[in-house]
């Protein structure tokens, strides 16, 4: 007993922090697009960082709880409701057996995470519970959730776990109203015309409708290469901004192919991938240049915050 899907939503998948160690065999990492929202959700519930949760996209699912469970909804505000009443995000909430979790209008961001105390009963495939839809691997039967799917909880809720009248500081999570994404220079930066490099940091880029978990296609003035030469394929990663011959940049996202042959003009700082993952079709973004040390320091600061948060939360579950 656990949950039952009543409406599937736009794209609802099981994700953890990703499938590592097999990229050399062409296996995508996948995992949560906004891994920080997932981390925070799991932290709120006292779960392991890597516990699998449900990633909802723009239009969330409707989920029937066959059994009570403590959950936390994080990431985008897709107007979550329980039995029609607004459900507060960023805190543990007890959902009673027989209740219906649903979503409404997307208010900010486009990916919400439903985390469950103790996690969901999803088999580990190649070391991860993440769904890689294209390869039909992992998650729930290798595919997005559909109506009638029933997923069990790992641990039934015990009433001793009590209610939790606290929530985490919203300042821990990026401000989704900004469209500024920090990037480091890409390995093939030198192959671009200097005008292209200027426009890259000056122009506004619109995320195309033709964007998904594999990659975001960007629309703007095309970025010109000095010469159109074919590159030998090499590894690419989440946040690599590659430019095909037509000059329209593509940012690789969680389900990215492991290798690519287009020049990479920039690489999104890991700390800004959650913000980027919350940007949806038709939204505008701009790039700001930072260096490797700055990017790694931002990541370290975020980690320190997270450790402090977890210490504070651990006390709540004692």
């Amino acid at each position: 007993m656990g949950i039952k899907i009543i409406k599937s939503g736009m794209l609802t998948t099981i994700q953890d922090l990703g499938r590592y160690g097999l990229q050399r065999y062409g296996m995508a990492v996948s995992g949560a697009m906004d891994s920080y929202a997932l981390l925070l959700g799991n932290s709120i519930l006292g779960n392991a960082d890597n516990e699998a949760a449900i990633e909802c996209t723009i239009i969330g699912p409707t989920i029937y709880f066959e059994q009570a469970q403590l959950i936390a909804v994080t990431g985008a505000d897709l107007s979550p409701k329980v039995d029609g009443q607004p459900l507060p995000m960023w805190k543990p909430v007890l959902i009673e057996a027989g209740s219906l979790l649903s979503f409404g209008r997307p208010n900010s961001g486009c990916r919400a995470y439903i985390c469950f105390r103790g996690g969901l009963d999803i088999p580990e495939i190649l070391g991860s519970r993440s769904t890689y839809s294209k390869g039909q691997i992992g998650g729930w039967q290798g595919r997005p959730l559909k109506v009638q799917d029933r997923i069990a909880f790992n641990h039934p809720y015990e009433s001793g776990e009590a209610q939790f009248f606290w929530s985490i500081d919203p300042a821990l999570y990026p401000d989704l109203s900004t469209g500024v994404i920090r990037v480091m220079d890409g390995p093939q930066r030198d192959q671009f015309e200097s005008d292209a490099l200027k426009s890259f940091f000056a122009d506004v880029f619109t995320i195309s409708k033709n964007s998904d978990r594999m990659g975001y296609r960007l629309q703007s003035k095309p970025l010109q290469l000095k010469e159109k030469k074919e590159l030998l394929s090499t590894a690419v990663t989440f946040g690599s901004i590659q430019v095909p011959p037509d000059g329209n940049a593509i940012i690789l996202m969680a389900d990215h192919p492991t290798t690519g042959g287009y020049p990479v003009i920039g690489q999104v700082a890991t700390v800004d991938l959650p913000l980027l993952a919350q940007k949806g079709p038709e939204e505008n973004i701009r790039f700001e240049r930072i260096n490797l040390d700055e990017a790694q320091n931002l990541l370290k600061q975020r980690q320190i915050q997270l450790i402090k948060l977890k210490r504070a939360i651990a006390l709540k579950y004692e």
Partner: protein
Amino acid sequence: MGSPHEQSLGIVLPDSIRHYPMGDQAIVLSFGDSLSEAVNTQVRKVVACIENWSQPGIIEYVPAYTTITIYYDPLTITYQELLTAFQTIVQDISDDPKYKGVKKEIPVYYNGDDLVYVAQYNGLTEEEVVHIHSAPEYRVYMIGFVPGFPYLGGMDSRIATARKEVPRLKIEAGAVGIAGQQTGVYPIATPGGWQIIGHTPLQLFDLKREKPSLLEVGDLVCFVPITYDEFVKLKTESYGH
């Protein structure tokens, strides 16, 4: 210049390996700008060292034609520390026979929709295309794009054919294709622009196997022509139904 052994050691001295960051969690080691058997052999030798590397903070590595990308956790190890540690392990590179790769046969039923086109494009008969394609030993230079997709080196230029102008929306799993000077096998159904000349009954990526990927970087691959009946029989065995 000394023995072949010393020469190979000379090539892998850290000074000759370029390195640059790819974002805040990856370092790229580059062994050259153009593809050659020698450069890819260097890649494979260094991979063999990295394979058994117990350096904390290393997440995984991805060998490609001329590069190895190492993913690391910047909260555990810095770029510079990783580089220093790497310099120590590359000293241990030797000419072990395991770098020569394992020979693997891939049976192919040459029935692809583009076989006629590939023949016409190159002024050959279909039989000649099959003969030329199944003659060489190909080297697995890298695996990427989708799970188990091998990038093979060593195709005869007489059958090189440009990609389709409009990619197919769906290429079946097991399809054997040609794109320019490259040949490869699609492990899973996916859109693609390669010219399809045949199909293998083997699963290149199978979760039920202990090692899901049939091929490893460095393996030597031979395509063996089979009949329709053999294809059906092998496919039944391979897919288990």
